[in-house]
């Protein structure tokens, strides 16, 4: 009965109800779109960071990340192999590759540059990261390439070398002896990311192992994992690997600024969520209050006829909930349609920002929304609609039948 | 049209759609008013008197027929010109909700004058003059909700007269008043008609109103059925 009464009241002043539903829907769809944009940018940033080269998880010898040194290396011990094969069998690991890296001085004709010399296993790397896609001149490494290298574009330019030229890398091997070798430049990477373009040289893993006297030894194991499995895989790896010998680091343990940045911006969005919620709640309260004031007389008659205050209050709250629910439904529909549409076509901001690739941001933003952001937002709007009914309910509860009937 | 003729409505029809059929609210009505008339249109509700009043007040347009007011073919006017014609030539008194809620009695009267572009001091003087004419001296600064129903209607009359219109239209002005206040309102209007020569057309089925009339026109089902000089 309450439901049908409430619905009739909504239908009676349909124009006003429509306006309110539209306002709630606008608020919610605007928030959903905002989240869509935000999550789109953030997820792209985080995906790019993990997929281009860093990976989702890296395993090193303990302390290697902070103090890289060839003495802190790993071998294919049974312990490590067991942990890795366990992770792989869980089906949550998309790719896994072993790397060896060291600092080196690269010399071109008459210039030298300090670089990270990174040995990669071409086959395993292809399943783990997308670094090969970032080669824009020449080609990436292939199996059995021999002494060849791929350089970042800035590094190649700084060294004054082009495809086919020889680059000499000067470094120290595992025993501290000076090691120098000549590598033929076969590819140049333009990722937009400064660290890669300016400071990286990639060479075949086996060649580098030989050069550094590191046969069968690695400095990093890189795993690519979907975001939803990141934590569980990390926990499992940490439990099966000895802390004294191995460190298991997630991408944001290694590069915390991006995660912090995302958290910071999300915090801002939560503030705006709160602001928009207050505005939407004020709107619903307005409508319910107005329609209640109009009906004070009617309420008085109903009370005189024996209708309890509780029923009246129930009616007001149900009215508010119906308005809120309709608004939320429309808002979800419009907001998700917007997000889906821009997920397809993207928002082209390349005119506003050419090369923010440094932050792993793509200039074309494809909106997407995290499920928990979506439900938090829709849930809070709905909750705001219910809370908005409390002021009118309070007024109803204070109503005296005789006074109400005489209300004009 | 003779010199003292103010209004000439010829063969006026107005139809309303109800369901499948059209209902004639005005069915080929001919109607005249002379300067200085004080005419009451009577008839039951639905007889077409308010519709006729709305036509004459340019609030509504007939589907068929012609309408001349003060020598002007008013049906040929655009919406904006009609608003201007109402402003310059016609005064209105309605049944209820006559006044703008948020303006004082004085500001309500002055509003029409302001629409005409009159200077502030002049229009406030005129408003005060007409408020005292309708017996509301001292209540100029009250808001409508601080005035009784009868007082509100008097403010409406003062407003209708303040702009010196050629014709004052009143739609059921006494409907929300008790008979004593209704009579005094009608006497006020009749008095102003005699002293100032203003033409009044009043739609009402209130016997008190009919008693004050110089001429009584009776309508039934969209037709004028009788017209008596009292």
């Amino acid at each position, binding site marked *: 009965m309450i439901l049908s009464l409430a619905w009739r009241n909504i239908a009676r002043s349909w124009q006003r109800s429509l*306006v309110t539903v539209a306002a709630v829907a606008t608020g919610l769809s605007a928030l959903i779109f905002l989240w869509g944009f935000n999550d789109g940018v953030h997820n792209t940033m985080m995906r790019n960071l993990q997929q281009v080269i860093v990976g989702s998880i890296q395993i090193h010898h303990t302390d290697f990340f902070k103090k890289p040194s060839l003495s802190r290396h790993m071998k294919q011990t049974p312990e490590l192999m067991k942990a890795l094969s366990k992770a792989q069998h869980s089906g949550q690991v998309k790719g896994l590759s072993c790397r060896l890296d060291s600092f080196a*001085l690269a*010399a071109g004709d008459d210039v030298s540059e300090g670089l990270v010399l990174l040995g990669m296993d071409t086959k395993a790397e292809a399943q783990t990261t997308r670094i090969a896609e970032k080669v824009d001149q020449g080609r990436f490494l292939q199996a059995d390439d021999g002494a060849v290298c791929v350089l970042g574009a800035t590094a190649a330019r700084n060294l004054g070398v082009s495809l086919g030229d020889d680059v000499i890398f000067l470094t120290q091997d595992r025993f501290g002896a000076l090691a120098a070798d000549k590598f033929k430049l076969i590819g140049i990477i333009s990722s937009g990311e400064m660290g890669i373009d300016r400071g990286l040289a990639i060479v075949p893993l086996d060649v580098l192992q030989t050069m550094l006297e590191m046969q069968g030894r690695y400095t990093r194991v890189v795993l690519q994992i979907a975001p939803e499995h990141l934590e569980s895989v990390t926990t499992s790896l940490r439990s099966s690997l000895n802390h004294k010998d191995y460190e298991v680091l997630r991408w944001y343990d290694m590069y915390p600024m991006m995660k912090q*940045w995302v958290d910071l911006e999300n915090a801002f969005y939560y503030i705006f969520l709160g602001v928009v919620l207050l505005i939407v709640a004020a709107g619903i309260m307005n409508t319910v209050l107005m329609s209640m004031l109009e009906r004070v007389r009617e309420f008085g008659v109903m009370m005189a006829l024996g209708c309890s205050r509780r029923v009246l209050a129930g009616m007001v709250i149900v009215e508010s909930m119906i308005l809120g629910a309709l608004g939320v439904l429309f808002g979800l529909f419009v907001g998700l349609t917007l997000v889906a549409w821009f997920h397809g076509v993207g928002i082209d901001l390349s005119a506003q920002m050419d090369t923010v690739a440094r932050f792993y941001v793509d200039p074309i933003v494809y909106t997407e929304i995290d499920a928990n952001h979506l439900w938090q937002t829709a849930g809070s709007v709905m909750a705001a609609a219910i809370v908005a009914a409390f002021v009118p309910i309070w007024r109803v509860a204070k109503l005296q039948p005789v006074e109400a009937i005489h209300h004009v | 049209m003779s010199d003292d003729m103010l209004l000439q409505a010829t063969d006026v029809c107005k139809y309303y759609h109800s369901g499948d059929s059209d209902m004639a609210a005005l069915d080929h009505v001919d109607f005249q008013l002379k300067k200085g008339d004080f005419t009451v249109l009577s008839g039951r509700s639905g007889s077409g008197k308010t519709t006729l009043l709305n036509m004459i007040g340019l*609030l509504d347009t007939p589907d068929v027929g012609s309408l001349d007011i003060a020598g002007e073919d008013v049906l040929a006017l655009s919406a904006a010109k009609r*608003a201007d014609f109402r402003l310059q030539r016609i005064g209105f008194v309605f049944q209820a909700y006559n006044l703008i809620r948020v303006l004082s009695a004085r500001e309500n009267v002055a509003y029409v004058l302001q629409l005409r572009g009159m200077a502030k001091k002049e229009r406030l003087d005129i408003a005060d003059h007409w408020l005292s004419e309708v017996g509301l001296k001292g209540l100029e600064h009250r808001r409508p909700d601080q005035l009784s129903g009868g007082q509100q209607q008097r403010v409406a009359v003062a407003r209708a007269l303040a702009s010196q219109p050629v014709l004052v239209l009143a739609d059921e002005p006494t409907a929300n008043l008790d008979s004593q206040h209704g009579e005094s309102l009608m006497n006020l209007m009749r008095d102003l008609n005699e002293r100032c020569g203003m033409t009044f057309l009043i739609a009402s089925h209130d016997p008190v109103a009919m008693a004050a009339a110089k001429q009584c026109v009776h309508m039934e089902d969209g037709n004028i059925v009788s017209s008596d000089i009292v």
Partner: protein
Amino acid sequence: MFRIYMRLGLRNLLLYPMRTGLTVLGLAIGIAALTFLSAMNDGWLQNMKVNFVLTQMGHVQVHAKGFEASRRIGDYMHDTSEVDKALQNMPHIQAWTHRIRVSGLASAAGANASVLVSGIESDNEKKVSRLYDFVQQGKWLQEGDKRGVLLGDVLADRLSVGLGDKVVLMAASPAGDIASEVFRVRGLIHSGVMDVDNLLALVPISMAQHWLGLGEGVTDVVIRADAFTSVDGIVNNLKQILDSKRLDSKQFEVLRWQEIDPMAEQWTIFAGVYTWIVLLVVIIVVLAEVLNTMLMSMYDRVREFGLMAALGTGQKQLFAMVVCETLVLVAMGGVLGFVLGAAASLYFGAYGLDLSQYATAFSFMYMSPIVYPELTFNGCARILIAAMLGAVLAGLYPAWKASRLNPAAAMREV
């Protein structure tokens, strides 16, 4: 006539204090949040710009032509006396210094790392950059201490070296030979900026010149202007003087900070786009609410509009009246919100807003985690203009509806 619309609008709004109050509150919250966000954004972008420039880069740099692109030590300036002479009498210059910049390799006890070696003039450097303020352990480079080096703290950690330890720096000389020198760590630098803490090795410029065989040559003249607004003037002035002094004007390149590293400017633009989107969305939500209120108020007053029309109020006048009422409503909320937002901005502008939990993200962006919001004219004007424009837009539909009412039908409404 305008005055009576304003008065009518105001009084109509006051007729329903609850409804108007709620709408004004919603508006005020929205505008206050926008004002504060904008001030915060301007505050930290300004902070970033200043830190970005003053950490190391300077406002303007002069190099040998092509050095910025090539970064080849071979492209150095043999003689900067013309530049120095030009700078001597130029207004708006706070200080300038010379540097040698070269990328190389550092090694110590088995560990090695790539470094950016920077040869500096110890006294002048203090006046130009903040590197001096960032010395965390040990001392700044002393005049005459030829083999002293200051390292970024992360770099030192990587090399496992501390104060007094030996470090070997290796770099290629213009002739192409790899030259190495032994230095002793005199101090550690912590700036929070990755490029500095992870890469930088500061050595005396005279030592760098000797070690790399540059004679009296340097790679950079780094200029600190008195303000960002002076940068363009300095650059034009300097280019003109250098052009007029020698026929061979192709010898130098004069670069603004944005040209040296566009990061700060790009980030400003990126943050700007973000702010615009948030601004747009909040304004839309707020205005949906204003539209809601105005439509309700209009539906309530159909009779009154009918009456006004009957009295001869023209359609345009009715239209203007509703728009005015909307403007009054938005102005009330806007002013209240702006005052609240501005007050919060000024308060935190004075005392700072501590966001240290995001410190790494901030220092990566050259920003201090204590944010001091800054009210700028542009930021405020943008919000107020958007709100007012939006108010007019939100008022248009109810105004249009009000002006289209048929007076006779409207009067029949109850």
